[in-house]
């Protein structure tokens, strides 16, 4: 009797497991295997065969190895600074009566919509040692010989990457904080803990999985970011992993060495993932219990303006200042001439909108691909996160690792693997939109998965068991309980992936075809062959169109971006 009733479920879950393994295999393992194969190929493929030459080449020079250490340091600096900037802001938004929360959320969203590449370019104009607007202002005000800021330094690079990494940590942290019940905090208060000590000793430790997840993702993102490394790392004379990879892809071309060079990143990711498991081992972070749980806002008194000041200061660095510079350039005849009516023009926009025949197509491509990629990523990661969290399948952790792996593969290397896997027959996807959609889906699986699994971890299985005890099947549990509970998360994750995909450069660079160029690729191309004024104008067009799509998405979903619960 027992066996008969359990049998169908086992088969169904096995089917799901097989399907997930097949899909993840196709999206993650297959391209990865291709990258490994490339790294093992003879540099001059005559005769074809396997060799470790490329590994010797990839690590055979002090500078190459130095790139790894520099990147490791950079990643740690960025992730830590990002947490310092974000956590107080996220806490204030999620748990306190800080005013103007919508404004802060809007600023965080603008930060996210701003491609890091665009932000880094603006910050060069703001804080380059001689010509930076801020340095010039300082010199004008104090009469000093030179300004104090130098963006072309490790500190400068850490700063610029950190301020554009805020959105991920913000979403992770607020989402988790909003799930922590005030009752737990009340208990601490009753036992004599003050507000600050409650926050530090109860609230923050409760959201440790989210904080650690945010730290890891920020770290991995920072060590493989291309744009900022090129714009700031190169002039700062700091060799970094992405710079070294680009060098291998330049002349002389050493694709094999590039593929080999990317390998230790995989180890780093697996290592961080294991570390996370170890740190979180055997503790419970279940917050969404289904047993009531009131969430009250903490009254900050006058300190609430301090909190708002901090949030506006941080987002001012990532949004307000850079956009002032961009606006000036986008509407300038020659941006170096500074502000002034005689320097105003719409010519840059006219050139882009009317002369660049491909802009319209790029806009269409961008949003079609981003929509499809976001939807695919959601479907895949929610399913995976659910079956992993509920231990419905054996080797669930393998699925988790697969979902997180793409973060360890720099976009350009992922693209090489993708091209090798999907471009030739039998799939023959070279130059199609499909290859870009699949690549974007794969590349942003980690963001979607980390969010989905964090959300899943917050749902108490007891609630599902209650449904099951009352006779509901697994499907009823999903449809009637899990999906409604996760609705906000689903919308939020969808938008996260959508925006990330809409501004993706590094993997798209090697995969786009003559008719599948996206806006971000066009942006990257323009940095290297056109006028800065046009670049700024395109940056603004990108930001505005993305905003329109996000607003539309929010309207359709009837929910605010970034998990607002008030």
């Amino acid at each position, binding site marked *: 009797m027992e066996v008969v009733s359990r049998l169908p479920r086992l088969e169904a879950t096995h089917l799901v497991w097989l399907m997930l393994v097949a899909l993840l295999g196709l999206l993650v393992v297959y391209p990865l295997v291709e990258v490994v194969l490339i790294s093992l190929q003879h540099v001059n493929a005559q005769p074809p065969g396997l060799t470790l030459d490329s590994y010797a080449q990839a690590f055979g020079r002090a*500078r190459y190895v130095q790139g790894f250490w520099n990147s490791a340091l950079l990643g740690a600096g960025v992730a830590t600074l990002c947490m310092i900037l974000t956590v107080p802001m996220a806490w204030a938004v999620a748990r306190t009566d800080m005013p103007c929360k919508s404004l802060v959320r809007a600023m965080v969203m603008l930060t996210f919509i701003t491609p890091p590449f665009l932000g880094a370019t603006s910050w060069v104009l703001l804080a380059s040692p001689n010509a930076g607007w801020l340095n010039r202002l300082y010199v004008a005000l104090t009469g000093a010989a030179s300004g104090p800021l130098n963006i072309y330094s490790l500190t400068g690079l850490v700063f610029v990457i950190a301020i554009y990494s805020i959105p991920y940590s913000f979403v992770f942290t607020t989402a988790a904080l909003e799930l922590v019940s005030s009752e737990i905090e009340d208990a601490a208060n009753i036992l004599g803990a003050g507000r600050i000590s409650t926050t530090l000793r109860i609230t923050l430790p409760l959201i440790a999985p989210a904080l650690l997840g945010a730290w890891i993702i920020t770290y991995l993102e920072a060590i493989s970011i291309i744009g900022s490394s090129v714009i700031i790392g190169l002039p700062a004379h700091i*060799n970094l992993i992405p710079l070294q990879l680009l060098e291998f892809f330049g002349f002389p*071309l050493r694709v094999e060495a590039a593929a080999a060079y990317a390998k230790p990143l995989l180890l780093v990711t697996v290592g961080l993932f294991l570390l996370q498991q170890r740190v979180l081992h055997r503790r419970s972070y279940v917050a969404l219990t289904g047993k009531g749980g009131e969430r009250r806002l903490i009254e900050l008194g006058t300190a609430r303006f301090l909190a708002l000041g901090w949030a506006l200061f941080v987002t001012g660095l990532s949004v307000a200042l850079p956009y002032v510079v961009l606006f000036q350039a986008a509407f300038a005849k020659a941006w170096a001439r500074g502000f002034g009516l005689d320097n105003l023009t719409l010519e840059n926009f006219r050139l882009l909108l009317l002369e660049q025949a491909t802009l319209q197509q790029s806009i269409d491509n961008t949003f079609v691909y981003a929509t499809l990629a976001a939807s695919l990523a959601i479907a895949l990661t929610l399913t995976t996160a659910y079956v992993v969290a509920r231990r419905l399948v054996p080797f669930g952790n393998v699925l988790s690792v697969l979902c997180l792996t793409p973060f360890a593969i720099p976009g350009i290397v992922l693209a*090489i693997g993708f091209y090798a896997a999907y471009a030739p027959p039998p799939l023959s996807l070279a130059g199609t939109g499909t290859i870009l959609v699949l690549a974007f889906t794969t590349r942003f699986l980690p963001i979607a998965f980390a969010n989905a699994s964090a959300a899943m971890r917050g749902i108490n299985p007891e609630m599902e068991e209650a449904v099951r005890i009352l006779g509901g099947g697994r499907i009823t549990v999903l449809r009637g309980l899990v999906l409604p509970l996760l609705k906000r998360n689903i919308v939020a994750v969808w938008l996260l992936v959508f925006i990330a995909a809409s501004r993706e450069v590094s993997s798209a660079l090697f995969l786009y075809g003559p008719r599948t160029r996206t806006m971000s690729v066009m942006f990257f191309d323009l940095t290297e062959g*056109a006028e800065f004024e046009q670049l700024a104008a395109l940056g603004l067009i990108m930001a505005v169109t993305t905003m329109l799509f996000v607003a539309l998405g929010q309207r359709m979903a009837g929910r605010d971006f970034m998990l607002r619960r008030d």
Partner: protein
Amino acid sequence: MHPFRPRGNVLRLVGCVLALLLSANLARADTQAIYDAARKEGPMTWYVSFYSQDLPAKAAAGFAKAYPGLTVTPVRLTSGGIFQRLNQDLRNHVATASVFTTTGIGGQYEMLLRAGELLQYTPEAASKLIDTVKPMITPGYIYPMGIGLMALAYNTTKLKAADAPTSWDALPDPKWKGKIAIGDPSFSGFDAAWDMTMVKREGFAYYEKLAKNDPLVQRSTLDSLTALNAGERIVAALPDTIAIESASKGNPIAVVYPTDGTVVLIGYTAILKTAPQPNTAKLFTEFLLSAEHSQIMVDSHLQSVRPEVTSTIAGGGKLADIKLAPPVSTAESEKLLPDLVERWRDLFSH
């Protein structure tokens, strides 16, 4: 005067004219056959790197006008980027592009030719190119289609013309410490050409001396232009084409052609053996070597490869007025560049 002589001349002249007409007709008949075949091929993809972002679109438009019914879709990247993309296609047996047009720096065309990846075709227009670029032809395969110049540029609000450096040799002078912007040879073809020219002439020591002046090193030559415009640095090694373009918009930029030799960078074109549109590719190659295309280049301040189209330089002078450094052949760059890039990066990025 011999009565028959003029008639003989006339006869000869008539004969010549007839022969010319006949050959022109034959050529036209041949071209017509290619044109007819090309019209059945559909849009052709063009991998191009030599010139800036908007030029490929202009060239494609010019081609569409010259050969109605044919379409070329450009994919433009850096020299390194476009070669990587082509290699990616070849490695995976994906035929996308038909024509490959780039600086060929680092021996790209030699590698392709050795691997048998180029299609043999002798453009009619090849015989009509200027004499200076004829030695750079690899008959039947690789043809020069344009010329770029790497010169000095400076910010006119920060530096008076009289104080601007006039030669490459002036740059290591300590008075330029913290004032120079340059590009990275592993990204930028123009900077790679400059580096090779200087290293051939003065050895790597030139850059070791230059490094002491702490130049601002960025990826592409356009980045140097940005740094110059902003006043972040006041002197840069820069392709004159982008400096002239920027100055014409009102930015405070001026060009100096160095007295010790402006660096010459040749753009080449070749047809790929796997070309999905070989006939369109042949006609497009003819177009790239035509006077019409040279005019498009000259309009964008690049240099012509056709005698009919006169090249100009910054300030409206002639190309012949300035001293040019001997160009480094792509075959030579294949030997020079790998080691140079390594040493250069060791010096500037660590």
